[in-house]
């Protein structure tokens, strides 16, 4: 068990090392820090002196070692645009993104498990077919398009005049199909409650939650179909196995067989895929936050690219890399502990 733990941690450190080398290579090759610091009139000899003083003439390895040492101590340099430490900028934007990911995860868990289990138990029922159809459409709509559709329907509103307006029925049907469009679609709102440090939460007030709904639903829309299909496929496989047949033959109630015996084994692969996908959602926050102008890390990253704010880009890459590596390692460890059939020490197959 300890060997497994150490192996996973070594792997995580290796990956972080690769990420940091890549991040440093980007920083090293992009832009000239001296040019950012001094004006046009400074002569070349002066520039050379500054370069020497900052250690920019040292070899790649020496510079990397300095970069890594500072990074481990939490010093990623100053953001050109915000004129404050890059890590500080990230810390200010992180809570908004985490809340968005949390809300989306909540939506995914609440909807995917019942729908997936139901469509595995009754694969031929019309409801299951409906959900399968919706889920393949959901996979085919890119997340930013879902977001735009949600804005059009719930924030701008649509007016439908398909039926004759004069008759009572026509007006009623039109009203049924049209939407008012009073949901907020821009930013986090002003009703934020301060919790601690940089963390202002959207979850404490009704207005805050209303601002969170549309971004969270669009972020969830990309993962929800994947999870429904995954849970369905795994559950159908488990339901074929001998121990489920045996439990059924013993006369245990069907509900107990499904939700206690079968669901447990279904969730094993779901945990692994799920953990990785929650890390993946960080990538999709870039898209959702752009559409909804949600002031999180994704929007900040895109702004940093447009401002060519290299220290901030590099810091973002390191922090997101860390988030990915930590989630993947935790998922691996949980899977190793939960699933007794995983070979803990041997070589991976």
């Amino acid at each position: 068990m300890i060997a497994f733990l150490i192996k996973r941690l070594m792997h995580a450190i290796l990956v972080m090392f690769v990420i940091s080398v890549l991040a440093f290579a980007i920083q090293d090759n992009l832009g000239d820090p001296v040019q950012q610091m001094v004006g046009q009139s400074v002569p070349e000899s002066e520039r050379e002196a500054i370069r020497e003083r900052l250690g920019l003439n040292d070899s790649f390895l020496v510079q990397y070692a300095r970069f890594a040492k500072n990074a481990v101590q939490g010093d990623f340099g100053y953001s050109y645009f915000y004129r404050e430490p890059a890590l500080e900028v990230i810390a200010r934007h992180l809570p908004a993104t985490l809340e968005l990911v949390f809300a989306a995860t909540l939506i995914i868990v609440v909807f995917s498990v019942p729908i997936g289990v139901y469509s595995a138990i009754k694969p031929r029922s019309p409801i299951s077919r409906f959900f399968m159809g919706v889920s393949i459409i959901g996979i085919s709509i890119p997340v930013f398009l879902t977001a735009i559709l949600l804005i059009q329907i719930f924030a701008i509103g649509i007016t439908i005049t398909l039926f004759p307006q004069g008759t009572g029925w026509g007006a009623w049907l039109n009203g049924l199909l049209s939407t008012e469009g009073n949901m907020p679609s821009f930013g986090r709102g002003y009703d934020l409650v301060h919790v601690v440090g940089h963390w202002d939460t959207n979850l404490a007030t009704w207005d805050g939650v209303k601002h969170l709904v549309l971004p969270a639903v669009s972020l969830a829309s990309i993962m929800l179909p994947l999870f429904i299909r995954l849970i369905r496929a795994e559950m159908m496989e488990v339901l074929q196995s001998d121990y489920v047949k045996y439990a059924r033959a013993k006369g245990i109630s069907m509900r107990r067989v499904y939700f206690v015996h079968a669901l447990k084994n279904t969730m094993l692969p779901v945990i692994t895929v799920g953990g990785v996908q929650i890390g993946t959602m960080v990538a999709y926050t870039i898209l959702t936050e752009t559409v909804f102008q949600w002031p999180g890390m994704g929007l900040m990253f895109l702004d940093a690219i447009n401002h060519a704010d290299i220290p901030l880009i590099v810091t973002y890459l390191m922090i997101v890399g860390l988030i990915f590596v930590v989630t993947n390692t935790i998922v691996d460890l949980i899977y190793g502990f939960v699933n007794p059939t995983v070979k803990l020490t041997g070589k991976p197959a």
Partner: protein
Amino acid sequence: MTTSTTTTTPSRWKRLRDSYLWYSFKRDRTAQLCLAVFICLVIAAFSAPMLAPTDPYDLRHIDIMSSELPPFWIDGADERYSLGTDAQGRDLWSIILYGTRVSLLIGFGAVMLQALLGVTFGLMAGYLGGRVDAFLMRLADIQLSFSTLMVAIVVGAVVKATMGSAFYSQYAVLMLILIIGLAEWPQYARTVRASVLAEKNKEYVDAARVMGLRSKRIMFRHVLPNTLSPIFVISTVQIANAIISEAALSFLGLGMPETHPSLGSLIKSGFDYIQSGSWWITLIPGAVLVVLVLSINLLGDWLRDVMNPRLYKG
């Protein structure tokens, strides 16, 4: 010798007609519909210069006075523009045709690059094993743990920052093919490696080795043909993914420029006008994108059910 083989083996067409693939295709209405829609879209996109009433790349056809005109079923439409115009006054129907062509071109190009890299690396990892295998698969693991979209966005951002926007937009098609191709090769590599591992201990491979053939020849001429069906199946999904990735990159401003738009950049340019009520500029290209991706995904689903290869999970 050659004549006898041609008479005994039936023609390709006959083999296709007798195959299970064709049998199930004839019975599956969804698959037929999807293939028809997909072929229509491809033909329409690649004959865009003939179908489109105006050339959207030609500045002479653009009239800023006729911008943001609605499509024909809404009051105030102009009969010259059947689907209305965008914010620059370009005919939406023409620009969607051209945009679909760009999206398809990048989608197919990127998947070809992915397949080339992925199949080569997958074959090497599976057949040679040992250190090569460990290195390539570790690389694939690391890259996959970061979601391909993230890799594509980061590479796109860095390339754009190093080379400058002007250069990037000039070679945007090539850049996007490279970025998406490099971001997604591990999918192919894993699938190919898994099927190579299943194939390589079979007798025909041993026989080829005993005959003294070089490993390169055995890999590409003997093992590869037997791993084609899973490659075929994931290719459909990969094309859909590549088209979505391209749209996402263009939507973020890291893809096609607005002068030469793909479906993604059309959606992006229309999004700025959605609050003013001109929903068609963004939602009509969006609908085309969804129909395109959906038809490919449904075809992929059908193919997977029919061929049922043991796809590598995980």
